[in-house]
Every structure is written in structure tokens, then in C-alpha cells.
């Protein structure tokens, strides 16, 4: 792993405007990813993890706006770029694997034709013949038979479709892929083989990755570094082992305590009281304070600072967990 940052996100704030008012889905989030590194973003529905993915790719719906911040990809800020410019960077530098693999392909074209189209659009120098060879190689790499190139999406099973989506994401040799819950709809044995595929390929191609999941266990297995999101804000960021052994934020701690495991001693699960806030009216101060067991006076007044705890471990909390 080199020290070069493939992507740097600085103070990113993204809002959706709705009839009821503005929703700050991503609020002042910063992180960077080195070449070959996998960052896991974990959090519950509505915490802003998919909104970050869409912002990074600038695939935002019409009512969404990046209000502030920078997304520096290979040294260039993507935020001010118009759509035509952005299109040149998508696929060839940054690409994505989405959750709904079932809907990622057009049912009336073969999977191969659709990937060739992507290659031709983004790498115009590659001939159709070379593109085809490239796809067959990619298919072998993700564990699909090369004959499947000429098949239609309905002839694929769920797991095969997810593999094809991964092959498509890799087709233009991106520097970074954004994987948004790519295994959530899959059975556990299929999930296992896809996870292995993703981590092996990422390693082999020395690619960077943002892996988004609500599943703490999946994040533990695929990421080098983990960012925990709550209600649009990043509350903690650290190396994977570090954050699992030494969680600092009470929400990170609660998330890990409430997650069941099939192995190890059967420990008591701890339930968090309450529900995540409505982002139309987020609570003042720390957004986690209404549910927080460590709450102190200033938590409902001031937003906690993003503090450095050493060893590349950052956390935003006024009254963190006992650290030892």
C-alpha cells in the first residue's frame, strides 16, 4: 500500500431539498483513501452512507445539492465539474457496484453487449475485438464462465448477476470502486463467495474501494479502515482492528454490542433505546445525544469536535468511552 491518496473528501455536505424543507443527508464529512486501501462505511438506513456514494460519483437526483466541500480524485476536485466532464472520470477512474444487481442490466441486451458499450464509451481507443477479450478475461476473474458473455440477464442467477456487475465495474480499470451493499440481497453462501471475489480482486489490482454496508460483520471482513456514520455525520474513523478493539464513540460501541455473532461466547446483546432522528429536524449538538448513554450537559448544545486520538483514530464525541 502506498501513501498516495486516490481520493480525498473534505468537509462534504450534501442536502436534499424536499417540500417539507432541506434534509442534510451528509454533513461535513471528511476522509481519504490510499491506493489499494478499502474503507468500510457502516451505519443504519438513512445515516447518509449511500448519499456519500452518490456524491462521490456525482450521480445525484435533481433535488440533491452538494452544498460545500471537495472531492479530490487523483488530485482533481470533482465537485465543480459539469456533467460532461464528470462522465470522463466515471468508470475509468471511479466506478460502482450497486445493491440492486437485479436491475442493473437492460433485459433486452446480452450482458456482454452492455459491458462492451461501457468500454467503448469510456475507453474509445479499445477495439470491439479487444473489448471482447477483455470482458472474457474479466468474467474469468470474477468466476463466471466466458460463455455467459452472450447470455441475457434473465439467464443469470442473483449471485451471477452480482458477479457480472462487478466485472462491469472493473471493465475500464478504475482506480477506485464504490460498492454499495453489493451482497445484501444474497444468501450467505453466495455472499461469502462474492466477498472473497471482491477482496481478492481489490488486492490483486491494487484498487481502492469504498465498501458500504449496514452489516458490521461484513465490514469487519472487507475493510482496512472503517468509518461509522450516524444521522448524516461521521462519528468515528479508524483502522479496522483498532475500531473493533477500541471503539471510542458510544454509538460505535453500541453497534458492536448489539450485533450477534455465531462464534465465540454468547454475550448479552445490548439494545439501544429510541430511533435515529428525523433529518428534517436533526437534534441540536451531537445528533446521537437523545439515545446516548454517555450524554453530558453540553452534548445537546454543541456539535462535538472531530478529534485525533492517535494511531490514525478519529472520533467526534464530548464524552467518549473509557479508553484502555
Amino acid at each position, binding site marked *: 500500500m502506498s501513501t498516495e491518496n486516490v481520493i480525498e473528501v473534505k468537509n462534504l455536505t450534501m442536502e436534499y431539498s424536499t417540500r417539507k424543507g432541506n434534509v442534510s443527508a451528509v454533513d461535513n464529512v471528511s476522509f481519504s483513501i490510499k491506493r489499494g486501501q478499502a474503507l468500510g462505511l457502516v451505519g443504519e438506513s438513512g445515516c447518509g452512507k449511500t448519499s456519500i456514494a452518490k456524491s462521490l460519483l456525482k450521480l445525484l437526483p435533481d433535488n440533491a445539492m452538494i452544498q460545500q466541500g471537495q472531492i479530490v480524485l487523483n488530485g482533481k476536485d470533482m465537485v465543480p465539474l459539469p456533467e460532461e466532464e464528470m462522465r470522463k472520470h466515471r468508470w475509468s477512474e471511479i466506478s460502482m457496484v450497486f445493491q440492486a444487481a437485479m436491475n442493473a442490466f437492460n433485459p433486452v441486451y446480452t450482458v456482454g453487449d452492455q459491458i462492451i458499450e461501457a468500454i467503448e464509451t469510456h475507453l474509445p481507443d479499445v477495439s470491439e475485438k479487444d473489448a471482447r477479450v477483455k470482458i472474457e478475461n474479466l468474467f474469468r476473474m470474477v468466476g463466471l464462465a466466458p460463455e455467459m458473455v452472450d447470455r441475457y440477464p434473465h439467464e443469470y442467477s442473483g449471485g451471477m448477476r452480482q458477479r457480472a456487475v462487478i466485472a462491469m465495474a472493473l471493465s475500464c480499470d478504475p482506480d477506485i470502486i464504490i460498492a454499495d451493499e453489493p451482497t445484501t440481497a444474497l444468501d*450467505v453462501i453466495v455472499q461469502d463467495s462474492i466477498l472473497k471475489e471482491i477482496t481478492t480482486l481489490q488486492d490483486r489490482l491494487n484498487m481502492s474501494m469504498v465498501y458500504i454496508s449496514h452489516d*458490521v460483520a461484513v465490514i*469487519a*471482513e472487507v475493510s482496512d479502515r472503517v468509518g461509522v456514520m450516524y444521522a448524516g455525520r461521521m462519528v468515528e474513523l479508524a483502522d479496522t*482492528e483498532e475500531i473493533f478493539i477500541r471503539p471510542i464513540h458510544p454509538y460505535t460501541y453500541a453497534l458492536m454490542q*448489539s450485533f450477534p*455473532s455465531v462464534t*465465540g461466547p*454468547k454475550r448479552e446483546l445490548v439494545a439501544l433505546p429510541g430511533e435515529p432522528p428525523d433529518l428534517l429536524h436533526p437534534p441540536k449538538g451531537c445528533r446521537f445525544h437523545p439515545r446516548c448513554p454517555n450524554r453530558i450537559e453540553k452534548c445537546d448544545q454543541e456539535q462535538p469536535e472531530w478529534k485525533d486520538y492517535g494511531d490514525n483514530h478519529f472520533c467526534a464525541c464530548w464524552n467518549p468511552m473509557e479508553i484502555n
Partner: protein
Amino acid sequence: MSNQPLIKVEGLRKLYPIDGGVFRKPSSFNHAVDGLNFEIGHGESLGLVGESGCGKSTTGKMLVKLFEPSDGSVKLQVGDSYINVSNIDRNSRKDFRRNVQMIFQDPYESMNPRMTIFDIVGEPLAVQDIGTISEREERVAEFLEMVGLTPASSFMFRYPHELSGGQRQRVAIARALVIEPAFVVADEPTSMLDVSIRTGVMKLMQDLAERLNVTYLYITHDLAVARYMCDRIAVMYLGKIVEIGPTEELLSNPRHPYTKALLSAVPIPDPRIKRDAVQIEGGISKAIDPQPQCRFYARCPIRDEHCKTHDHPPLEVKGNGMQVACYKVPVE
């Protein structure tokens, strides 16, 4: 509590025709559930675990009489004797529903959006003619408080769309338990909930089971959840139970090769632990007109000639209370 089981399932089957029509008899069948035998004791929680398409939901629906079995029987203990669920006719269905209820997976689709929370939770009481309206109101309030929707008065006359997923699932639990049934089938009741909400709902279901002496059949694809919710677990593969036994024994010492594969595929929420490689071949298919051999044969890492030429193995006690359907697993 008696020593007799509350539920006895014998030779339960459900076959779906996949061809045929109005004038033609079907010649091909999907054996969705194929010869299940198990019992559930009073106050016990049995987990039914497996991948999508293994027949776990179909089994659950036959137990609550939402589906009719193609063959075999489900018997429910009422008083001192057993009634065969298939023989229940229109007139006695109401009594059956008094004893048996279901909690569904999707809290968004399992409730009538035009009914208030009071109507939803109170409906079983109304159907069963229990109490006057004011008594029902009191009871609904009591159950809403019990499932953690407090104060009940602020939820009673709201509509489902005003509640979050976790709150709706609590309403679904209140609705299932308000008539204090003996047996509840819960089909993936927490799989659509977020982690921080899920744990609360799991704990609630356990507390209520103890308080109201409810027996659960808990259907889930998630072995980690089953570990916390169930006393015993049955693992299903293509319509068959391949292994059944006490939860901790099954998880710490799985015997059937499919259970082993399933367990080794579950991610572990601790980055320091590396899992063993999953020992399984190929992908899951359907049991359409299955060959007379072990259902797991094609994917099994320990198969041999005997497995190929013999019918699907029966469930046999192999040791420590574990029943396993495999020729290759030795009796201890």
C-alpha cells in the same frame, strides 16, 4: 406445562405443480417441503434456518394453516388431545386462530394502511368476540405498553404510515399476542430492521414469550439471530431438515456438511478472527422431481457411492441430542 409437545409435525409435504393446466394433469413437481418430522415443546422456541427457497416459509405457513399440505399432518395440542390442523373446517377455524398466530417479515405490507393502530391490534379481539369495546381498548393499551409503544394513548389512534419500521413491527407483535395464543410462527420478523432497532425487538419477543408462555417457530436465514432467539435449531436444505438439535451444540459442533458450510459462510464481526474456507460446490437449485438420493449430493464435499445410490438419508440421532440426515456422519 406438560411433557407432551405442543406441535407435532408428521411427514409434512408441499408439492407445487410446475406444468399441467386445466385439462392436463401435472407431471412435474417442485418438492418445496418434502417429508418433515419434528415436534415443538410447550414454551420452546424452534428456529427454522436455511437459504431462500429451502421451504422454511412454506413450512411456517402450513403450520398456521395459510397453506394446505399436500401430504402429512400438523397436530396441535388443545387441552388433553391433539387436533389435526388439516381437519379444521370453517366453523372451528376461529378457535384455531385463538391459539395460533403469525408475525410477518414486512411491517410495511402486513398492515392495512386505513386502519388505526387500535383497529389493527384490536381486530383479533373483535373477531374472537372478546370483551366490550372499552375492555378491548384497555387491553390494546396494555399490549401497546407491553411492546414498548408508550404512552399507548399517543399511538392508539395513529396510522401505520406515521410509525417507523421498528414501531410497526412492535405493533405486529402486539397484534399477534393480544389474544394470548399458545403458538406463534414468526417469519423473519427482524430481517428488515436496522441493527440498533433489531436487538430491541428480539429482546421484546423473548420477554413476551416468557411472560405469556408463548411457543415460537422462528423462521430466519440468519444463524446469529437464531442463536439468540431459539432453544433448538432445524437446518433446512431443499425441502428437507438436514440437522436439528440444541442451538449451542448445533453452532459449536455442526455435523452435517451443509450446516458446516452455512456456518463457515457467516461473516464474523471481529477482524481478528479469520474464517475457514467454505466447503461446498456449485449453487442452490430447486427440488424439481428430485432423484432418489441425498438432496445435498451434488454439492457435498464428503459424498461417496453409497450416497449416490441410496435414497435421501433419514434423520438419525448421532449424539448430544443432535439428529442428522447424513450417511457419512458417524453415530457417536
